[in-house]
C-alpha cells in the first residue's frame, strides 16, 4: 500500500493517512521510522512546509512519485509498545513538574514584590533601600528587588482591570435581541400573575409554625412576589409530605382552590 506521511501539524507523533482514508500513528506502524526520518519520505529529504493538511494531501496526490512506500506489515512488539508508552508517560509527568515549577517561580516573584512594596510603604524610601542592602543584600540585589516590585504592581493593576472588564456585557445585536425578548416575556408573565385577581388568604399564621416578626414579614414579601405561586406549590407539597409522614388526616374540599389545602392540613 502506498502511504503518505502527514506533516507535523502539532501532533507529538505524526499520523499516517492511507489512501483508503484510514490512519495510524507512525510509532505504532513502523518502529524503525524516526521522527527525523518521516519528513524524508517526501521530497527526497526536504521537509514539506505545509501547514494545512488538505494542501499537503493535495500535493501528495499531485506528486505520487515523491511518496515512498514502506512495508506496513512491520508491527511494534508488545515490549516496544510498552517501552514507548512508558517513555511518553514519564515525559508528560516531567512536563507537568517543570510547568508547575515555572508557575511557582513566577508566583514567588510576585509575592516577594508585594512584600517589598509593603516594606517600602512602611519604611519609606531611604530606610527601605538600606534595609534591602543590609538585610536582604546577600540574597537579592536592589535592582532585582525593584524588578519584582514593579512586576507585583503590574500584576495587581492587571488583575483589577481584568475583574472590571469582566463586568461589561456584550452589546451586539444578537445579545440585545435575546435580552429584550426575555424582558418582554418576563413582563408578560408578571402581568399574567397580577391579573389573577385577589387570592384567597391562607391563614399561614394559624399553622403551628414558630414565626417571629421577621419571618412573618419575609412571608408577606414572598406572597406578594411573582415567585409565590411556585413557593406555594412547594409549601403545599411539603405540608402534605409531613402530614403523610406523621399520619395526619388531610381533608380536601374539591370545590375550593388548591391553595386552601395547606391551611386545612
Amino acid at each position, binding site marked *: 500500500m502506498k502511504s503518505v506521511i502527514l506533516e507535523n*501539524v*502539532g*501532533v*507529538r*507523533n505524526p*499520523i499516517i*493517512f492511507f489512501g483508503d*482514508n*484510514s*490512519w495510524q*500513528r507512525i510509532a505504532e506502524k513502523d518502529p524503525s521510522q524516526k521522527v527525523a526520518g518521516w519528513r524524508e519520505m517526501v521530497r527526497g529529504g526536504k521537509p514539506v512546509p505545509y*501547514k*494545512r*493538511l*488538505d494542501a499537503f*494531501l493535495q500535493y501528495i496526490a499531485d506528486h505520487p512519485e515523491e511518496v515512498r512506500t514502506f512495508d506496513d506489515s512491520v508491527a511494534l512488539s508488545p515490549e516496544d509498545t510498552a517501552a514507548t508508552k512508558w517513555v*511518553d508517560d514519564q515525559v*508528560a509527568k516531567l*512536563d*507537568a*513538574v517543570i*510547568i*508547575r515549577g*515555572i*508557575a*511557582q517561580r*513566577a*508566583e514567588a516573584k510576585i509575592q516577594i514584590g508585594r512584600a517589598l512594596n509593603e516594606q517600602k510603604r512602611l519604611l519609606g524610601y531611604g530606610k527601605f533601600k538600606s534595609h534591602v542592602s543590609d538585610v536582604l543584600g546577600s540574597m537579592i540585589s536592589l535592582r532585582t528587588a525593584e524588578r519584582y516590585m514593579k512586576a507585583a504592581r503590574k500584576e495587581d493593576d*492587571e*488583575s483589577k482591570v*481584568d*475583574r472590571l*472588564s*469582566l463586568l*461589561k*456585557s*456584550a*452589546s*451586539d*445585536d*444578537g*445579545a440585545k*435581541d*435575546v*435580552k429584550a*425578548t*426575555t424582558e*418582554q*416575556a*418576563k413582563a*408578560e*408573565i408578571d402581568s*399574567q*400573575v397580577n391579573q389573577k385577581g385577589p387570592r384567597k388568604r391562607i391563614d399561614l399564621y394559624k399553622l403551628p409554625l414558630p414565626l417571629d416578626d421577621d419571618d412573618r414579614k419575609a412571608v408577606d414579601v414572598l406572597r406578594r412576589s411573582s415567585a409565590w*405561586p411556585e413557593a406555594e406549590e412547594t409549601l403545599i407539597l411539603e405540608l402534605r409530605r409531613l402530614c403523610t409522614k406523621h399520619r395526619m388526616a388531610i381533608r380536601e374540599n374539591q370545590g375550593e382552590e388548591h391553595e386552601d389545602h395547606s391551611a386545612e392540613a
Partner: protein
Amino acid sequence: MKTILLRRDHQDAVTDLEGKFPALSHVRKTLMETTEARTKDGIVRVVLACNVIPTAWHKLAYELWNNVDELPDNRPTAVGSASLRRIKNDGMLSGRRGVPRRTLKVLRKHGTAQGMLGYLDASSNEACHRTPLTKDHPEMLNGNERLIKLLDELYKLYAPVPYKRQRAEIEEVPQWRLWGTVFSTIYLARNFRTAYHYDSGNLKGVMTALMPMGNFTGGELVLPRWRLSVAFRPGDVLFFDSTEILHGNLPFKGHRLSAAFYCEKRIGHCGK
C-alpha cells in the same frame, strides 16, 4: 506543540457571568494555533489541535448535520435568556419552564437549531435510549463513522489522561458508545451563539471535543476564567472540560455548525 501557562485564574469573578453573553473585552489572549494550555498545577486544561480533520470529512459532516431543526428551548442559560413559565394558549400560566417563546422566535430567525445524536442516559421518566434524531436519521451518525473514530484517536493523542478516565467509564457499558470510541453522544448546534454556560449533562473530570464546521467568521469560544478565547476553524478540534469551565461564543457571521463529542454523565449506570 506550543504550551502556554494560564497564570491568572478568575474563577471567583466568573460565577456571575453564567447566562451573560461573552464580549471581546473579556478576552486577553486568543489561541490560534495548535496549543495546550496548562494551569499552575501543571494540569492540561485546554488543547487546541489545528488542521487535524481532513476537509472532505468535516464538509461531509456539515452536509449531514446541517439539517438539525430542534430549537434550544431546554437550554435557557446557553441561550442567554431566563427559564420562565410558559403562557398557555388559554392565557393561563403553565407549570412547564423553558426559554420564552419570543426568544425562540428570534433564535429561529437567526437559523439557530440543535440536535442530539447517539445515546442519552436515563432521566426521571426515561431509561437510557438512542436519541430520536439517531432513530429517524441513522445516516447522520453512520455517514460520519470515520470522523468520530478519528476524533477518538486525536483525543487519545492530545489528552491521554482524561481519555483514559473516560474510556474506563464507558467500557463498563460498551453497548452505549459510538463504535468503540469513548463518546456516547454528539451535540449539534447550528448558528447558536451561546451565552456563558456549563455543559451539565457531560461526564465530569474528562474532556469534551468541540469541532466547528461551516463557513463563518468570528464565533470564538471564550473561557473567561482565564480571559482566553479560542479562534478555531473548520478542521480544528478543541478539547476542554466543559462541565467545569464556563464557556460561551462571540458573535459570528455566516453559517456555523458546532459539534460537541462527549460522554453522557450517567452513561455508566445504563448497564445496571
